[in-house]
């Protein structure tokens, strides 16, 4: 009898505990932050280095420095790229997020729409030294134009054309290509003996978007109308997508196997000498991690349709990079802005961007000679002259998914030897456009 009573009491207690534990969620939704916990911050850093461990080694000493200066302890979590957006979405819906976080700068407008992030109005920018400390192009990728930015730039990157010096020398190519026609001509010279002229990342949706967006710009297409409606089937957009896929389908300077690449295999191919060129954003750290020496590769601005990159209105890169944002629900709003101020200060900008091989979006930090190496100067100039921000619309995330998938499917067609025609490209983009939410 007693045993039964104990069991019953135990069962009830357990149920109560379970119920209580489940009700522990639910954040405040007033959304201006508070200063309830002024001594701690949680920080989600995006994975920038060659591994999560590398990131911890880069960031921890800086966080310790911040703690020494302010007495605020920052709890660091490095989040892999593949999980970051979903983690942010979950944190947004549950209200249980970090205080400060890194976001891919292309997500700025989408996350801004969710209302999860602290808007950077004039008053908040004051706290980190003012808006004009930042490079214009980087500010262009912090949210919908005309609204207060949802984040501030932290690391900047840009696309460039990386080439294998030895492969070029062996083939007698003396001048790296500057236009797409030259890329194809050079690529054909270099595609032989099981090696390919150019590497692409056909199943990587984001990368597909970055590439066709730039080509779209070069053909005068924007993928979104001025009032923010999806516009994927304009002549320029179709031309752009076809031109990119034709590098494999028509010019055949891209190996068919690239169609299934999505995990940066194109970079390992390049490092191993299997491809002679690759279009990538800020790849030097990855090449080093793959065992390629700095003097084995060269870098020039990414190609344009004709003329030279940076002349006239020719775009040859999207504005790539990482922004830093503060969660509205933070319980340490003052500490969070202090931390952003610290991370975007000149000194930290130099340390962090050097460590990651990126460019500081802060003007005064860019003057450091470390960012004037041949490799980085190209990226810096591209950002200053010829980079455009991806569409700053709340539907940017959907656009990456549906158009990125369309390009992936077209590459699969090309790899399987099926024809890629203007009609087939248009049909895929048509389908992508219909999948976008109706506005």
């Amino acid at each position, binding site marked *: 009898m007693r045993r039964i009573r104990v069991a019953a009491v135990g*069962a009830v207690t*357990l149920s109560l505990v*379970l119920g209580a534990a489940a009700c522990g969620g639910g954040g405040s939704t007033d959304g201006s932050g508070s200063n309830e916990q002024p001594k701690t911050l949680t920080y989600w850093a995006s994975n920038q280095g060659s591994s999560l461990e590398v990131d911890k080694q880069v960031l921890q000493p800086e966080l310790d420095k911040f703690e020494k200066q302010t007495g605020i302890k920052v709890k660091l979590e490095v989040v892999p790229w593949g999980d970051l957006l979903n983690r942010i*979405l979950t944190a947004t819906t549950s209200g249980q997020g970090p205080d400060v976080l890194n976001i891919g700068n292309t997500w700025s407008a989408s996350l801004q729409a969710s209302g999860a992030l602290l808007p950077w109005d004039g008053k908040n920018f004051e706290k980190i030294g003012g808006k004009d400390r930042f490079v214009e192009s980087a500010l262009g990728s912090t949210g919908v134009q005309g609204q207060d930015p949802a984040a501030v730039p932290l690391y900047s990157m840009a696309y460039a054309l990386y080439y294998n010096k030895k492969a070029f020398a062996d083939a007698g190519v003396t001048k790296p290509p500057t236009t797409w026609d030259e890329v194809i001509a050079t690529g054909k010279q270099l595609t032989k003996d099981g090696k390919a002229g150019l590497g692409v990342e056909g199943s990587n949706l984001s990368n597909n978007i970055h590439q066709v967006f730039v080509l779209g710009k070069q053909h005068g297409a924007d993928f979104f109308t001025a009032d923010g409606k999806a516009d994927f089937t304009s002549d320029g957009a179709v031309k752009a997508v076809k031109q990119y896929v034709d590098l494999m389908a028509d010019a055949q300077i891209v190996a068919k196997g690239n169609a299934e690449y999505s995990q940066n295999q194109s970079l390992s191919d390049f490092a191993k000498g299997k491809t002679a060129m690759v279009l990538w954003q800020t790849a030097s750290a990855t090449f080093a991690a793959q065992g390629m020496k700095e003097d084995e590769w060269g870098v020039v601005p990414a190609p344009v349709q004709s003329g030279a990159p940076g002349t006239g209105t020719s775009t040859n890169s999207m504005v790539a990079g990482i922004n830093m944002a503060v969660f509205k629900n933070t319980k340490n709003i003052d500490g969070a802005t202090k931390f952003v101020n610290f991370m975007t200060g000149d000194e930290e900008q130099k340390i962090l961007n050097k460590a990651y091989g990126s460019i500081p979006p802060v003007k005064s930090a860019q003057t450091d000679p470390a960012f004037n190496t041949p490799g980085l100067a190209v990226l810096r100039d591209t950002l200053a002259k010829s980079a455009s921000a991806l569409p700053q619309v709340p539907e940017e995330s959907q656009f990456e998914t549906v158009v990125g998938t369309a390009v992936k499917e077209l*590459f699969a067609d090309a790899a399987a030897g099926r024809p890629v025609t203007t009609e087939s490209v248009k049909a895929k983009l048509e389908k992508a456009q219909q999948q976008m939410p109706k506005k």
Partner: protein
Amino acid sequence: MTTTAPPRTGKRTVRKNQPGAAPRTRRSGRLRRISLPYLLLLPALVLELLVHLIPMVIGIVVSFKELTQFYLRDWGNAPWSGLDNYALTVDFDAPVGQALLSSFFTTCLFTFFSVGLCWLIGTAAAIFMQETFKGRGILRTIFLVPYALPVYAAVITWAFMFQRDNGLVNHVIHDQLGLTDSPPFWLIGDNAFVTLLVVSVWKGWPFAFLIMMAGLQNIPREIYEAAALDGAGVWQQIRRITLPSLRPVNQVLILVLFLWTFNDFNTPFVLFGKSAPASADLISIHIYQSSFQTWNFGTGSAMSVLLLLFLLVVTGLYLLFTSRGRSATDA
């Protein structure tokens, strides 16, 4: 799954020599006895509520809302959209509905083949393992390895093996055996369906094997001996004794395999990433993509609710047809 509570006849069972059974506790004692099973079930019920039922109800509610990135933060107050999400989902002339329908058929086809093969291989292996022979224990252990491995690790290994340029599969069939003119793609395009099937069967058949082995243990050997005396061969024994005796086990096994396979998310997600090729676009991935990749949680929830209804109907019909001629108590 029913629990068997002791039959209550309304009369107290009279026990002899019961010291201390004072009449004053009669009523409370009875109450206690009636409520005890419920009390003991309470933790499980609470957990079930928290983990399954409440989220399910929320999902159903969300399917009637316009939950996009604009309302994520305060999703409880997202605007109601009535049946819009459902209308979009079942409009089979529009791309969203078309894609869902083709994903649904792909999933049905995949489930049919996967469950069929898992059952066939599992059953054959279990019958084969009935005989004692040298090394049976080791073989049995080896058979269970796929079931014991962590799914993610196993499937990612398969994904490496199926890579076109550096994968083991093409290395064998193209480089060594020369069966194909050019190395085929396994992770994009039409072959992705085969890839998915291979990995799914590899992962699933050991479970069938395990359950079948357990089922076979319960068939008395005497029946086989008697049949053998009557001149029944091996095939006849399998057809007339083994399979009919395994019917109840099979019913549960096939149902469980069907549900697991139909809803399998891990395998395609790890193999193909966030956008599976059309040939292997299983419904679970499709719903994930509609929700998390295009930030349209309302539509994703509507798809989930329709899937739930479909699975409920199928499961209900299945149980209805298979439990005919059996008493309800051993379901």
